[in-house]
């Protein structure tokens, strides 16, 4: 959708084609352009985000959570945490929102060719990783082991449970899940996702790790990955910061010397390590 770059501050109207409720406060919206010539929705790479505009209310950065393959639905998983995300989460099928994008850096799915890939997701952090999972599964034969380690609050508060089961049942993706709180019917791990890392014997010289979740969780996950022998150059994280323009001119998303909207949100850990471990930066 290159038109949006004529002026990158102008949102394009997109219609909600489908709405799925993931959790009580989380929905996934599948979007299509409203342009009458029925153009295919924009193409993107895993890890990128769009600025979604709720008419009159405001705009927020939301990672694209769908399949990056051509002609697949353009999906965003949104959690209702405020005025704008609330307005977006309350949209119904047929409603229209504004979209600017895609912006940002991408998960290194191509650089990781030939390697084992371990994806570590926490809570809603599975959403920005899902496009990478689709990609990796679509090019399965070009990778070694594919492992997803997913930590969530409880089994009721997990994203994409049916897809997780489907992925797990295929031989392509090893899936291990852990919950912070156990419930009666849960038969899986109860504990922190970092424990899943230490339990998965990794081949550190041939593994690329992609981590996404709350910042504290990423901090500990990165630590554990390093304990298992991965060097910072093989670890990738996705960082969030306040964004207004998404094009590197408003200054809000700065994280040390990086602009998260264009140098990130996906960062190779060694490149952000210096500031990642500083407080209030």
């Amino acid at each position, binding site marked *: 959708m290159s038109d949006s770059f004529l002026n990158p501050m102008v949102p394009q109207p997109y219609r909600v084609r489908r709405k799925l409720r993931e959790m009580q406060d989380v929905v996934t919206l599948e979007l299509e352009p409203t342009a009458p010539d029925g153009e295919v929705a924009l193409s993107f790479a895993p890890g990128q985000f769009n600025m979604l505009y709720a008419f009159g209310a405001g705009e927020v950065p939301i990672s694209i959570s769908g399949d990056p393959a051509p002609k697949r639905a353009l999906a965003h998983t949104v959690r209702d945490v405020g005025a704008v995300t609330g307005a977006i989460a309350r949209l119904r099928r047929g409603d229209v929102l504004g979209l600017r994008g895609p912006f940002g850096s991408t998960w290194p799915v191509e650089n990781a060719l030939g390697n084992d890939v371990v994806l570590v997701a926490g809570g809603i952090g599975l959403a920005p990783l899902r496009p990478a999972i689709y990609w990796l599964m679509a090019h399965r034969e070009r990778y070694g082991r594919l492992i997803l380690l997913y930590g969530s609050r409880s089994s009721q508060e997990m994203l994409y449970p049916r897809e997780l089961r489907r992925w797990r049942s295929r031989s392509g993706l090893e899936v291990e899940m852990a919950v912070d*709180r156990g419930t009666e019917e849960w038969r899986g791990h109860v504990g922190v996702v970092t424990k899943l890392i230490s339990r998965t014997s990794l081949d550190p010289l041939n593994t690329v790790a992609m981590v996404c979740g709350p910042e504290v969780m990423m901090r*500990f996950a990165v630590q554990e990955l390093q304990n298992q022998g991965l060097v910072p150059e093989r670890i990738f994280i996705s960082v969030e910061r306040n964004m207004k323009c998404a094009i590197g001119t408003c200054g809000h998303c700065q994280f040390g010397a990086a602009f998260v909207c264009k140098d990130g949100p996906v960062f190779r850990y060694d490149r952000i390590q210096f500031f990642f471990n500083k407080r209030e930066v």
Partner: protein
Amino acid sequence: MQIRTLEGVLVQHPFFQGLDPQYVELIAGCGANARFNAGEVIFREGESADRFYIIRRGRVSLEVFIPERGSMMMETLDEGDVLGWSWLFPPYRWQFDARALELTRVIAMDGQCLRGKCEEDPRLGYELTKRFAQIMVGRLQAARIRLLDLYNPNPADTG
């Protein structure tokens, strides 16, 4: 025959790494294979803690029973994990329930016997205490992180 097999297993286990072979033999002498079927209770809160277990296969849940809510799962342990440290510290009573979630095979170590041996030989005591302390550090750290409730979208809740 059985004892030597156990010793072989223990020697391989990371928990016993670096331990003097004579101690491994001694500990193996206090151990026996055991198995629990899915759903079977391994020990209950309040009972006398006389054992600890090396999980060889399966999954165990640590639970606490809350009236009106039933059994709440605190943590799960799997193959390779060590279960139970209350045998080593007064009042030598289990703090939680442990239950096999699936068919689980363990090596059950006689804690009461080992306690005596640790008193006699402080060096053995130190080596075991060191290793259990390490495990507890890891569990405490993980528990603290879970207390942060990082996946909760409403940070105010956890305040």
